[in-house]
């Protein structure tokens, strides 16, 4: 299937996506308990379905279970400092973290319908950088995330910019022997803009 076809199909098939968006890591969380907790504390910013409308707030739906859990652990132990997320994560037990990871991983990923690319040159630059830095090695061939590596395809562009800048300044820790800190160390602001633009436009369900 071509990428363009995938985007079109994906936009129409959010429900079907539920079936194919199985996380690569078989977690141990309880979906119902995860849903209840998510509605209580996550939904106001991240959306009940894990689709964020808020600038700078990431989509969580369809992300890798283990990635989500590690981020909550980092927020809770202060290794990823955040006033909002630190406060919330402090309320979570290990079981809550297992359940929330499983729940958001089980949701159909955000799938923004294809729109004209206003900056195809930036897309090309981003694609080259992503290949140069071999992002697919950890994030998967289609950037859907796996194990402790985040889903990048179709993530909010503004959030990808923030995340890459945070890794670059070591404002957040990196799973996997510091991989993201080092991978971003040589990126300029323009590089980060290009990488984010490219990844945000990739299909959620290739």
């Amino acid at each position, binding site marked *: 299937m071509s990428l363009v076809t995938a985007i079109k199909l994906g936009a129409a098939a959010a429900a079907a996506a539920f079936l194919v968006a199985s996380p690569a890591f078989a977690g141990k969380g309880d979906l119902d308990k995860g849903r209840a907790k998510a509605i209580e504390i996550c939904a106001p910013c991240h959306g009940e379905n894990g689709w964020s409308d808020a600038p700078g707030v990431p989509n969580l739906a369809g992300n890798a279970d283990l990635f989500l859990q590690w981020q909550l652990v980092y927020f809770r132990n202060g290794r990823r400092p955040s006033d909002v997320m630190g406060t919330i994560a402090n309320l979570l037990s290990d079981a809550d973290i297992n359940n929330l990871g499983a729940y958001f991983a089980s949701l159909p990923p955000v799938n923004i319908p294809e729109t004209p690319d206003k900056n195809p040159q930036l897309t090309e630059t981003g694609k080259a950088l992503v290949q140069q830095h071999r992002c697919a090695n950890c994030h998967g*061939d289609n950037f859907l995330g796996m194990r402790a590596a985040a889903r990048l395809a179709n993530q909010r562009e503004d959030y990808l910019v923030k995340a890459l800048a945070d890794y670059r300044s070591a404002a957040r820790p990196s799973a996997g022997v510091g991989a993201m800190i080092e991978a971003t*160390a040589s990126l300029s602001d323009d590089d980060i803009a290009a990488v984010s633009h490219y990844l945000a436009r990739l299909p959620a369900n290739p």
Partner: protein
Amino acid sequence: MHKPLGLFATVCAAALGLAFAVGPAAALKSYDSSKPSFWKNPPPDWFLGDETDAQKGLAPPAGPATPTSFDELNADLKKIKLAPGFKIEVYASGIPEARQMAWGDKGTLFVGSFGATNVYAVTEKDGKREVKTILKGLTMPTGVAFENGALYVVAIDKLLRYDDIEDHLDKPPAPVVVYDDMPSYVAHGWKYLAADKDGKFYIPFGPPFNIGIPPTSVAQIRRVDPKTGLAELVALGVRNSVGGDVDPRTGDYWFSENARDWISDDLPSDKLNHISHLGEHFGYPYCHQGDLPDPKFAMGHKCSEFTPPVLNLGAHVAPLGMKFYTGDMFPADYKNNIILAEHGSWNRHNYQGGRIVRIAVDPDGKNPKQEVLAEGWITGPQDYFGRPDDILQAKDGSILVADDWAGAVYRISYAK
């Protein structure tokens, strides 16, 4: 700043469109690790720098984000196969990334950690065990030891002493730096401690890469005197050693050693070594497993120039913490055996190791015999529910096993 990756861009471009068919990239990773710029700021995937076609795509698995719960641990331990008469149980849970263990004089169990940056204390009160995080924010505080009322912690490039620790678990004193003549390389810079009868510590120094001519400050074992801050160089040519112990029969130091990666699933073997005289060279990077010259770094050297291993333990079994057994609980033929925790593979298609073995061996290193004491933590070709990484004997002669994957400590006991 390194820029090792541009080489691959064009190849990847072709591969990406065919991602379903051929995987992420056709090119193999290759790093030039021969320069200080690499050692000081290695690329994120420094351990993948010598990729081969045969081993391509293998990488260390990411463990669970949260420690395995007590109930789940109990269910998991039912699947562990033990030598006859032995029993395994959960000693303590909720210890993220648990690494080396040490006993305090008053019965506190201290536990180091890997990336979690913590040191823990497990205490027992009214028959209930409690896990406290007593130190936070250290860089890879994997190694711990206890001497004269003080806790020693080694965190990459500093050996720290926390005096009178057991009376101050809730508010530990500021540490005294007792030794810091150590390189700050994090790659293979995580260490365990082993004290001898003089209160000096054997400390391993691993090279900051898989294979290459190492910086002169590493690929060695030192004996460090925490009283004076002076160190002797006792062994050379050692790759990544994370575990060792002093032989109660002779006072000699023995250690486990993780061999280089990226040759094949079955080569080279990890090793058990014995230092019989000062300054012995154990072969790295020239020769592996006593008989395998390195394809690139042998550079004309023969394996016969180096001290061979006491025992080849198997490829990619990842031997870490080890202790000579001196207790009375286990059968008599366990006396003075080495009990060794194997952390298990990542650079192998079908993981192996991930178990506890015992090795009977003469004091001079002759007649080694190995037997499995406990196994079953490997749950699939490339998955675990636990990874043993250290051994500690308890007063009653049972042994404790640390597991950084499950974030737990187990107890193995024996009854006739």
